[in-house]
């Protein structure tokens, strides 16, 4: 009965969504409002005014920087949320008994996999940095580079053959918390520099060179902060 009800509900919701979507202006037609109004302005002015060949980056970091600030905050908050929720067990039950059990049941890492992962890691890291640094010209940017970097770090943590050591030894814990907060913090810095340079919060400098530098800084902050958050999520789930 519950299954049937759920099915009816889902079908009704689906019908409503489809009804909404089929009545929208046809995608891809040049005269639909999506293409004629604000987006047209971005395309016309994006290159010079937005300061990035990649219009997506121009919108993310320049026109709608405050949105991106909110987004990196959500990512950071997600990590804080997981860290807070894993305290559910309470302080007394957190003495590594569970971890020891896990270690004995864990299959030792294959030397082949460990070797290949370590061989490929520098290449992945280079690619991630490239994606971050070139995000204003080519497809990519801080978010994309960050997830690639984060995936690489998680891969290393999974397969580097160092399961006997805790990951805490990789980075000093004080520094770790700063890096995790890098996303919101670079935007905080952008807020203030924008006020100094051009009189508006969240605005990029007008000078092309400085604007590019600030954009690269933002991309690095988003990317490295995002990667640190992803690694933190992984670690919190594995150990928490």
């Amino acid at each position, binding site marked *: 009965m519950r299954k049937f009800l759920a099915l009816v509900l889902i079908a009704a919701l689906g019908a409503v969504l489809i009804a909404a979507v089929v009545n929208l202006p046809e995608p891809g037609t040049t005269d639909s409002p999506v293409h004629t109004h*604000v987006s047209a302005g971005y395309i016309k002015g994006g290159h010079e005014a937005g300061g990035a060949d990649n219009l997506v980056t121009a919108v993310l970091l320049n026109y*709608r*920087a405050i949105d991106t600030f909110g987004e990196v*905050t959500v990512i950071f908050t997600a990590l804080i949320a997981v860290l807070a929720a894993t305290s559910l067990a309470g302080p007394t039950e957190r003495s590594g008994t569970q971890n020891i059990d896990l270690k004995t049941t864990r299959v030792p890492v294959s030397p082949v996999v460990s070797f290949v992962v370590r061989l490929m890691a520098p290449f992945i890291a280079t690619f991630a940095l490239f994606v971050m640094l070139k995000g204003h010209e080519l497809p990519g940017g801080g978010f994309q580079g960050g997830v690639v970097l984060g995936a690489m770090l998680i891969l290393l943590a999974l397969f580097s053959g160092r399961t006997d050591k805790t990951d805490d030894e990789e980075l000093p814990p004080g520094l770790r918390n700063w890096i995790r907060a890098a996303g919101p913090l670079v935007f905080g810095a952008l807020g203030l520099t924008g006020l100094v340079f051009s009189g508006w919060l*969240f605005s990029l400098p007008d000078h092309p060179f400085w604007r590019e530098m600030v954009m690269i800084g933002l991309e690095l902050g988003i990317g490295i902060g995002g990667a640190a958050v992803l690694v933190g999520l992984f670690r919190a789930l594995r150990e928490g």
Partner: protein
Amino acid sequence: MSAAAHGLALVVLVPIVGGALIPALFRRFPTAAWGFALASSALTLAISISLIRRLLAEGPFSYAAGGWPPPYGVALHFDRFGAAIAVFSMITLLVLIFSRRYIPAVVPIARIPLYYALVMINLGGMNGFLVTGDLFNLFVFMEVFSVSAYALVAMARGPQAGLAAIKYLLLGAVSSLLVLFAIGLIFAQTGTLNMADAAGRLDAAASIVPTALALGALTIGFMVKAALFPLHVWLPDAHASAPAPVSALLSAVVVKAGVIGIIRTLQTFSDHGSLQLMPLQSLLIWLGAIAVLWGAVAALVQSDLKRLLAYSTVTNIGYIFIGLGIGSATAASGAAVHIINHAVIKAALFLAAGALIHQSGLRHIDDLRGLGERMPLSALALGVALLAVAGVPPTAGFVGKWQIGLGALETGRPLLMGVVIVGGLLVLTYGVRIINTLFFRPPLHVRVVTSREAPPSMLAAILLLAASSFLLGLAGKPMLDFVAPAILPLTDTG
């Protein structure tokens, strides 16, 4: 461009950056995070007061974030609804003061900075939600305060809080998706995300179907966040099992975001010529009326003090929606004032209840018998706030309910006036019951006898809030006059 306008972005920037700094700065000295959080929320409060001063001097104003003129950039907009950020910042500040002694008792010491970080990020998200004039920005800040709210509920110990947080998370995520879907529909129809711009261009849209569905999705999405009956099911669990300061924050501030979201929705769609908002408004009245009665009756049968208070939030959200649904100037301004007044009263209620529960270790109402003798100030504050939430004149709860009832009479709905009165009486019934239990019944539980009055930091927050929930009633007239200009555009929708 006066300096005050920058404050519109700063009320978002300061608490969020402050919150992001806390885990990094206070890893070694977790308890010191309290002072930092207090300072940054005080700064936020100061900025929001400067914004209100400018609002009173010059009327509503906008700020183009990044210097990009709307609709290309994100426009932040400050109107008389946005002025609520000052009250919400104030309540957050008091909740933080209360947390100083409360939180170390319920949260493992290493996680204390996380709690303060989440509270600050929650404040920043709320502020952003209230001041933004952009649809997608609205969604982003809704996510900021929602995600932090889920986590704050989960901070309490025990499996109950975890389950409540998951329930809250699931419903909240569905509502967020609905809002996002609606924003997508509006963008596809108008090509813009700026609320004012979109409102003007909706009429020219090719088809009315997606617009109507966007209105529906936004309403349902925000109804979940506001916990309006029948979408309130997550609220009693979440607000009852969270730590007391978190309950205060969620019940007083965070559910109001849903209400403000509905107000913004009505504002955006009221320009649309062919779309009648009438059925939506009568739906809000009906649901609000059911919520008032349902919440009051459900609260009557609760034996757990915090759960009772959580159901009282359901009742009060019902009142606010009745006022918004009626839509006349009297009722809607009453609803707007009740948003603020209920925030103050509910913060007082949850903090006072938190102090009683924390000091005695008991949470069932019957166990609390005679606690008024041991903890006179906290119990007195709870009593005053209970009278206020019932709407006894001249307390703060009276103003909004009276206006909403008046509005119902003016628009020829005497039955609705009856609902308002019956709801108030039901609330008064359990209010008097609790006061009676606290002060006039002999102690039953041994812990009551050994309980001591709450520490000064808790008492300061409780007494200030309880006093305000009494005194704001006397300031009813100026408050109504303050919100009236903001209400006017809403009233032509009916």
